[in-house]
């Protein structure tokens, strides 16, 4: 059985999906994240609260997510953060 993804890894996967497309619609992001709608909502709320992503609404009221500078920084340092958390049992 596949190992349950760690929280940091899920966040990284969501951010990578957004980064790869620059802007991504919520439904497409939900599919690419492989999360249940409930979990997806929790993660997205957390990422918006932390300032890693932002929700853009265009003039046709269509929603999409894009990465903030904080989100880019996180992705750049992801391996260091992951290694630190794992090595110190945090």
């Amino acid at each position: 059985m596949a190992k349950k993804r760690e929280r940091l890894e899920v966040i990284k996967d969501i951010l990578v999906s957004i980064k790869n497309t620059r802007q991504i619609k919520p439904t497409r992001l939900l599919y690419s994240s492989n999360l249940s709608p409930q979990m997806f909502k929790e993660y997205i709320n957390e990422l918006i609260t932390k300032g890693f992503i932002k929700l853009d609404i265009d003039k046709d009221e269509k929603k999409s997510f894009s990465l903030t500078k904080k989100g880019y920084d996180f992705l750049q340092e992801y391996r260091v953060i992951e290694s630190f958390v794992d090595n110190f049992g945090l």
Partner: protein
Amino acid sequence: MIYDFIIQNREILKIFYGLMVVLICLVIVLRTDRLFRISLHQGIRYFRNAFFFFSLAFLIRYIMGSNVLVPIIHNNYFFIVKVAFEFFLIMAGFFLLYSLLWKKIEVSGESYPSSLFNPVILIFYLFTFSVIFLDLIWNTYSFMFVSQIILFSFASAISFVNYENNSRRHKFLKFYFIAMIFSLIAWVLNALAALLFNWNPLFAINISIINLIIFLIFLLGVINVTKYRG
């Protein structure tokens, strides 16, 4: 011979020892603070707090509380130093333990906005002030020793489980466990030195050496893990 040298220059060496620990802790705090600001990871946040509090405890005890640097004064000053030292040292231990436990306590995605004032940390404050109060009443450090021996027994057990589960992939878990065992040994020796050996200088020197080794293990671990970028 080296012990004689240390005992003769004890007060000066205590200042150097305090400065070394403070500097080590500050490097750890700066490195981990950067990681926390990028990741907003609560475990990193509590780990950073632990070493910030350790640095304050050693700064207060060995620099501000030094008879050489502060050749004063009023007894109240050293009373405040004792209280502040105990407060920061006990809280640092709690932060370190909680950095290993927070995932089991805080609800995923709903972490507390403040790492210094939240319900769990308030319980730690309450416990810490109770320990300080009891130590003051009996004019001892015994309650602090007992609390820290219990705390580091838990931390040792948790770090052993982490080591058993993931040591192949994450090498520092072994050293983390060793550091926790050393911490436990240092606190037991502290208690023995105070209660049975009347602060025998040889005991105190060995405890200081063990403490320095513990902080160096953490420093090397932090530097090693955070050295590669991108």
